[in-house]
Each structure stands twice: as structure tokens, then as C-alpha cells.
């Protein structure tokens, strides 16, 4: 029977939200393939997270406990997982698509001769095996892919693709996973907060968010005017921040802040999944984009196709008029 392994990410004795999503995904995948899912947890003294995982309907919770696993490094993680996968031969290994997982999963695939399906958002049975769906072109398109050849399949599941509370509860025995000689390949020096959190967008009622389409720091003035007339906070998608057009504390998305305003303007934002996860709690979404096929229109209530440099000033004017 093809076994399914689920690699769990945890921190300070708790499962990462996306680890719970990965459990739900792994259980679904096991149902399709007819196997049983087991969870794998790497750490040192991570008993609390293991206990949390054991409350799911799983074959086993396998815990790899080793001093070198106390802090994550790809060297120690791949060193622990590669021989275990070779020995146990799971058909599928499911992991959350987190910054930690994406760091080591490709190396694990390379080390074990596995196939790698990054950022899966869905899977379904197809001819000759599972068919996976994943975003390409920054989410503007989706690809359906299948896996050929022999050996395990490693997949990471995108945030929000499977519900964190969708995992089936149960009672799983906790067992230990033997770890051979492993070593960290990074000398950890510390962690730092990025740029501080001077701006808290999480409680904003109205957000005007801009994307790459705005075209430059010198073109922000009309955006700021729109925000002002709306009494809104200005946010941005990642490319705007990376280009230095706005400070990093304005970033909305998987590596930035999460917002849930009643009104959200997405201006020149195509709608990559990394941005959508940061604003999916928004009430009414207005999208302004020159590309009518931009994925942002799929999640918006109102769509305006055209040149944002014309639409934004017109909108500011219309709101001013309406407010008298």
C-alpha cells in the first residue's frame, strides 16, 4: 500500500498553521491513493507538537529527535529524512509550502531521486496516477502536471489550498524515527525583526494597495490622494517593496502583513497567490488592472480594466464629489 508521509513544521511546541493544512492535504491524498498517512516531525524535545499531531487520524506520528535538529538547517533535515525515506519508501511526501520547506525540499528530492511538485494547490486522480495543479506565471495561469518514472513524489502544498481545520481527528501512536549521523550545515547566528512593525495594517478599515503596475516611486502621488480621500491606509504587493517604491512595513501578503478591511482596492496588482493570502479576509475588493485576465479579477467584486494612471485620479475626483 502506498504510504503517505506528511512533514510537519512547528515552532515553540506548536504546529505551524500550514502544517495542519498539510495534514488535511496528506489525508486527502492518502484517501485517493489508498494508503495511510503518517506524520513526520523533526526537532529536539518537540514532544508538545508531537502530541498535537497525534490528535489526528494518522497511522503514526514519527518523531526524529536529535540535538542537531533543534534549530532548522537543510543539512540536518535532509540528513535525517533522506535515509528514512529510502528505507521506508513512502510513495508521497507532503509538506507545507513554507519558506522553511522550500529551502530543503528540493535538496531532499535531489538526494532521494524523488520527483518534486512545488506549490501544489490541488490534486485529483488521473490517467496513470495523480494529476497536480500548481500556479505558474505568478498565478496568472495554472499548470496541470503528472509525475512519471519510479521513486517517491515530494510535494509542497500552497498556503490556503487546504483548510487548516480540515484534518480528520483521531488518535495516532507516536513512534521514534531513527536518525543516523547528521550535522547542521549552517552556523546560526541569530534572528532579527525586519524593519520593525511601525505600520499595523491588520486593523485598517479601508486599504488602497498598489502593485508593480503603478510603475515607480514617482507615480505614488495619485495613489496617496485616493487613500487620503478614502481615509485609507496604503499597502502594496511585494514587487513594489522590492523596488523600494514603498517601505517594507507596507507589504501585504505571505511575507508581509495580513489585512481584513471592509473595502480593499487592488491597483496594478495581478493577484499572485502570495498576495492573495494576505488579503483574503477583505470584504469588498475593487481591482484595477490593465490586463483583463489578471487573477485579481477572480477574487474582486468590482473590476475596472484600463490604465490605472487615468482611473485612479478619476476615482479620487468621483469620491470627492460624492462626499460633497
Amino acid at each position, binding site marked *: 500500500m502506498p504510504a503517505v508521509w506528511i512533514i510537519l513544521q512547528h515552532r515553540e511546541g506548536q504546529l505551524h498553521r500550514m502544517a495542519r493544512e498539510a495534514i488535511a492535504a496528506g489525508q486527502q491524498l492518502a484517501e485517493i491513493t489508498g494508503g495511510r498517512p503518517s506524520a513526520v516531525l523533526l526537532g529536539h524535545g518537540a514532544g508538545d507538537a508531537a502530541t498535537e499531531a497525534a490528535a489526528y487520524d494518522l497511522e503514526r506520528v514519527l518523531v526524529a529527535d536529535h540535538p542537531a535538529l533543534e534549530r532548522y538547517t537543510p543539512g540536518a533535515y535532509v540528513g535525517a529524512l533522506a535515509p528514512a525515506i529510502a528505507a521506508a519508501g513512502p510513495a508521497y511526501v507532503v509538506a507545507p509550502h513554507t519558506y522553511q520547506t522550500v529551502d530543503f525540499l528540493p535538496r531532499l528530492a535531489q538526494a532521494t531521486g524523488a520527483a518534486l511538485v512545488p506549490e501544489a494547490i490541488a490534486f485529483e486522480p488521473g490517467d496513470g496516477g495523480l494529476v497536480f495543479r500548481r500556479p*505558474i506565471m505568478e498565478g496568472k495561469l495554472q499548470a496541470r*502536471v503528472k509525475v512519471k518514472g519510479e521513486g517517491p513524489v515530494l510535494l509542497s502544498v500552497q498556503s490556503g489550498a487546504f483548510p487548516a481545520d480540515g484534518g480528520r481527528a483521531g488518535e495516532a501512536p507516536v513512534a521514534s524515527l531513527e536518525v543516523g549521523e547528521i550535522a547542521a*550545515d549552517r552556523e546560526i*547566528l541569530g534572528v532579527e525583526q525586519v524593519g520593525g512593525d511601525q505600520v499595523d495594517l491588520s486593523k485598517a478599515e479601508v486599504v488602497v494597495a498598489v502593485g508593480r503596475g503603478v510603475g515607480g516611486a514617482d507615480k505614488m502621488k495619485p495613489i496617496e490622494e485616493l487613500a487620503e480621500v478614502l481615509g485609507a491606509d496604503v499597502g502594496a504587493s511585494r514587487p513594489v517593496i522590492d523596488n523600494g517604491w514603498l517601505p517594507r512595513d507596507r507589504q501585504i501578503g505571505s511575507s508581509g502583513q495580513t489585512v481584513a478591511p471592509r473595502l480593499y482596492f487592488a491597483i496594478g496588482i495581478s493577484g499572485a497567490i502570495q498576495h492573495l493570502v494576505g488579503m483574503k479576509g477583505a*470584504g469588498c475588493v475593487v481591482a484595477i488592472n490593465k490586463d*483583463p*485576465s489578471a487573477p485579481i479579477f477572480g477574487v474582486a467584486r*468590482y473590476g475596472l480594466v484600463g490604465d490605472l494612471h487615468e482611473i485612479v485620479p478619476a476615482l479620487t475626483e*468621483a469620491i470627492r464629489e*460624492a462626499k460633497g
Partner: protein
Amino acid sequence: MRIAVCIKQVPDTEARLRVRKDGLWVEEEDLPFVINESDNYALEEALTIAEKTAGEVVVVSLGPERVKDALRKALALGASRAVHLAEEAFQGGDALATGRALAAAIAGQEVDLVLTGSQSDDVGYGATGSVIAGHLGWPHAWLVMGLEIEEGGTSARVTREMESGMNEIFRLQLPAVIEVQAGINHPRYASLKGIMAAKRKPIERPSPADLGLEASQIGAAGSRLEVLEVAFPDSGEGAEMLEGDAATMARTLVEKLQREARVL
């Protein structure tokens, strides 16, 4: 230091996309191509380090003939030579197959460091650099937001992005593969002098055999992923699209936000 930079040429993220007739990829005719965004930052990082250490940058890319433009641009920016894996056998691979070929190309270059972007803006596997590191047996780091080569050039201080606004800082032994995140620096523009000089810089085009690779290990044949279809996603109910010129759309929107959605 001698640094290899792996770049990928991808469709301009601003370009309008169409699905190719066979449904397996986008229509490339009339599609503008550019150097992948995070690879551009990797190139800048490499050029800066090479300048400081009196070193050189070798730029490496896998892709069809059009990729020559991206390599010329990298040469114009300051790379001293290029390696282009252009043969058909190299093409159409997943991250594992592409990483294997790139690692083989880099192995012969005697470099001290490999830099590349964290993720391509087209297929977005976010994996190729790490696979290269696996083949070379070197440490790697993905999503790097800060890189400092330490004295002696045998180690690097790396700042890596984690979730929830935190960075992790660690030391890596060199040689290593560093996959940088967009935003790590400010990429330069090519000068006219650079563009002229680039015309005389060499682009090497090794065959799979030159790199000791079998055709079955690389490209589509050496991949375990097979694309069945690419398509625009179902947009669910999708947005109500407003009609008219900018002023008309603006007035309609304000009315709808007030009366329909009642959020204004």
C-alpha cells in the same frame, strides 16, 4: 572570487499572456522576454562581490536561442563570459533535470560561489538553485536578503527571510549556492561602453556530452514532471466588470460602493 550566476530568461511579467495552441505552454510569438527578476538581483550581487575581490562573473543559462539576448545583457552589465546550454536535449526539464545540467556546467568552471534568484517568474519551482547545490555537494540558502563575504573568502554571513517578518542570520562555508530574493540590492543599468564590450565577450555552448551528461538525464526526457495543460484559472464568480472610460467607470464604482456594497 570567481562567481557563477545562473539566470533564466522569462516572459516579461507585465506582458499579456495567451495559451499556446497545444495547451502546454504560453504562446511565445510576440512575447517580450527579460531576465528573471530575482536573477537580476543575483547578477548585481555577484558583480558587486567580483568588483570588491578583483574576481570575475560567469553567467550561465539554460534555454533556447532567444536566451542569447539575456546573456548579452548580463555581459553588458559586467559578466566576463557566458555559458549557454542551448541544445534541444537540455530543454523542457523540471527543476531536477535543469539543476543537474546547470550543476554539470558549473562544475567545470572552478567557481568559489554560485548565485541565482530564488524563484523564476514563469514556472516558479523555487528549487533549481538548491538542486544545483545538491549535485555540487555544497551548502545553499534560499530566499537570501543579505549576503556578506567574510574575510578570507571562505565563509559568508547570510540573512535569510523567514515567515512573519523575521530574518534568520547564519554563516555558510564556501563554496555555496546562494539563492537571492528580489530586493536585496539595486540592480545597475548597462552602459553604452558595457554594451559595446559585451559583443566581444565569449558565449560558450557546451553539448550534453561535453558536460558528461546523457540525453536521458536532462531536459524533458530526464524529468519526472510532465505538463498536461496550462490554462487560465477558473475565476470563480469573478468581478463585475465596469464599462466605459475612466471617468464613467469611476462614477459607476462610487455609486455601487455606496448603494450596492454599502462600504463607502
